[in-house]
């Protein structure tokens, strides 16, 4: 009897353990996808209120936000409203910023996910084997008419088809405090490097440090100068093979060194993120080179409402790419194996356009994904800039092409802003020493 009891107990333990290891979704949390075939991509739901056609379905979304963040709150509220209107339940899992660490593996394992959310470059280059072709659904929704062509074209360039819908478009450049400019009696935004230097001097004379710079963004700031002189393709080539010395990279580095020597950076720069950028909120600095989210960061961190303005990085004499500006997006995509792609697409449209798109822009303080909506006051002009852009500059892609040395290059960029190099040639020699 004891033997039987022991064997039974052990069997129960083994079974319980194996059941616990199962990756089958539980009925309560993740109802299994229905067995109907995927909706034809060319036939989007024409009426989201039609409960009979879509009701009872559940779609699962893995979000890159953490629960409680403004974006997460809007997404949750939008999902509830979407369910109320269509009967389609959106099961959202807030995975946080490091979602990219688990997404690729989860997609390869055909995890029960319909919508993923991440940087559009990763969606276009890493997850593209597992993303749905949204071309037909986007066409039916007339997506081109209210989205940003530069972002769509970039997605198509990476993936070969439209596989991402922008949720949080971003734009980079020099963000500045308009009040500081007014104090220094600066009436026009600088367009060229010499005009930029004039602006810096006027700000310094007015008692405001011209530039804030956190070490975390030193590579991004220097990348702007490099792109002006060399263009992204040439930077990538140099990053992979070396040979920086003797190129225009020396002048790019020299420009930064000159800024440092002229005392145009705020005391402490390059500082630990976000200490330096916060100094704009405290009225100690006037400008920062970053993406548009810096405005919300500074406002939130310092409890102030900076009167923000934005201008593109100034052009340099004989520059190879004087018009480039960073543009990117956190985007949404549908998995290629989703059983409910049309419902997923409808939810994406529901979230990123119209009322909820506006709420997302207002609450998360971001550029609206729907160009018909209105940008928050201090991001005025960003919609038009994005609409007018043709090809976006990446986030340091050229300097990250060589994964083996990207960390060292980043540290060298910080050293450049610390004023450790006497000349641009010295800096380029340090870069070449890495190869």
């Amino acid at each position, binding site marked *: 009897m004891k*033997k039987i009891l022991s064997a039974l107990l052990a069997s129960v333990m*083994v079974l319980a353990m194996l059941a616990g290891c199962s990756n089958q979704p539980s009925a309560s949390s993740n109802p299994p996808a229905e067995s109907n075939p995927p909706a034809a991509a060319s036939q989007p739901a024409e009426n989201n209120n039609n409960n009979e056609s879509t009701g009872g379905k559940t779609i699962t979304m893995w979000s890159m936000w953490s629960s409680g963040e403004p974006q997460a709150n809007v997404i949750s509220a939008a999902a509830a409203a979407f369910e109320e209107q269509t009967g389609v339940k959106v099961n959202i899992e807030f995975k946080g910023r490091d979602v990219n*660490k688990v997404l690729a593996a989860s997609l390869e394992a055909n995890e029960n996910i319909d919508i993923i959310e991440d940087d559009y470059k990763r969606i276009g280059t890493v997850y593209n084997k597992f993303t749905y072709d949204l071309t037909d659904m986007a066409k039916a929704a007339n997506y081109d008419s209210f989205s940003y062509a530069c972002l769509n074209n970039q997605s198509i360039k990476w993936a070969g088809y439209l596989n991402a819908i922008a949720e949080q478009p971003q734009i980079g450049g020099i963000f500045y405090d308009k009040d500081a400019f007014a104090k220094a009696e600066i009436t026009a935004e600088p367009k060229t490097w010499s005009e930029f230097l004039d602006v810096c001097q006027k700000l310094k004379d007015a008692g405001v440090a011209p530039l804030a710079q956190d070490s*975390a963004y030193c590579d991004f700031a220097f990348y702007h100068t490099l792109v002006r002189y060399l263009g992204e393709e040439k930077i990538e080539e140099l990053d992979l093979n070396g040979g920086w010395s003797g190129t225009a990279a020396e002048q790019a580095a020299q420009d930064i060194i000159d800024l440092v020597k002229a005392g145009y950076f705020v005391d402490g720069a390059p500082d630990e*993120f976000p200490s330096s950028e916060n100094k704009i909120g405290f009225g100690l600095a006037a400008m920062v080179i970053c993406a548009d989210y810096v405005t919300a960061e500074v406002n939130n961190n310092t409890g102030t409402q900076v009167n923000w303005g934005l201008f593109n990085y100034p052009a340099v004499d004989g520059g190879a790419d004087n018009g480039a500006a960073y543009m990117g997006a956190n985007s949404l995509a549908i998995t290629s194996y989703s059983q409910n792609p049309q419902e997923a697409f409808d939810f994406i449209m529901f979230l990123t356009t119209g009322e909820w798109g506006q709420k997302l822009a207002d609450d998360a303080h971001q550029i609206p994904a729907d160009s018909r909506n209105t940008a928050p006051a201090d991001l005025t002009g960003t919609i038009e800039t994005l609409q007018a852009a043709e090809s976006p500059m990446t986030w340091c892609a050229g300097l990250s092409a060589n994964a083996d*040395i*990207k*960390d060292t290059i980043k*540290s060298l960029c*910080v050293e450049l802003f610390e004023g450790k190099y006497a000349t641009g040639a010295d800096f380029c020699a340090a870069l070449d020493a890495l190869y």
Partner: protein
Amino acid sequence: MRKNKAMIFWFCLPALLSLVIMFVYPVCRTVVMSFFQVESVTATTADWSFYGLGNYFKIFGSASFMTSMRNMLLIWIVGGVFTLLLAMLMAVVVTSGIRGKKFFRAAIYMPNIISAVALATMWIQYIFQYDYGLLNTIVQLFGGDKVKWLGTDLKFWAMTGSFIFGSVGYYMLIYISGIEGIPQDLYEAATIDGAGKGRQFFDITLPLLKGVIKTSITFWSINTTTFFLWTKMFSPIDTESSTIVPVIYLYDMVFGGKGITQRDAGAGAAVGVVLTLIIIAVYLITERLFKGSDLEY
């Protein structure tokens, strides 16, 4: 009670299965993977292509990996010396019969019960802060100029110092338990023989703590090779060479970083194997150095 071998087997089976599935299999897979070119950590073996020692040549030829190894070695040696010596000192002081023993023990151990994220944030945003940080306030009080504690020159040492602060309490507890296990008779006899506190420490406490020291060195080696969170906190947006350690290099290799879309799970596996071999080597060396240290008293 008569031994029932079948019953022992059945009760051990779940634990054995867990061990095989969750430990032995991943370890074996990682070792094998390190000899293959594999892009994704979950790629099926059909997508693997044999690469021989290519991944090992790749990582040892990588400037970032070598920097990360140098950083890890410095944390292990410098951080280890400071942490273990400070922990030993605190343990001896706390067990010496001073007043408020419980308070000091709790105070020194406290950093271990605070989230390391909160602890690192305190160091970065308050103690090392350039404008109003504690250290620069003290420096200015003495008439000095503000120091960039988190500049490229000092960032590594700032991170290591913070890590030491968070680690001392843990090792102090280990040493306290070892010291309290030493019979008081030995100290009483030594006192009668005229031995002072210093002599007692070097001739009684230290020799009888050899086994504990051996254990703490092994623990410290494991802590150092799995060093991760502090680097992430001190390089918040993207990895920097001043704070990179092998596990971060592995992490970036396997999952990519900000703006990085390349992934190399094979090279990541090779890093994992190298780290494991380092821990085994340290363990074997300490075993040999502290041979015969398991005393009974």
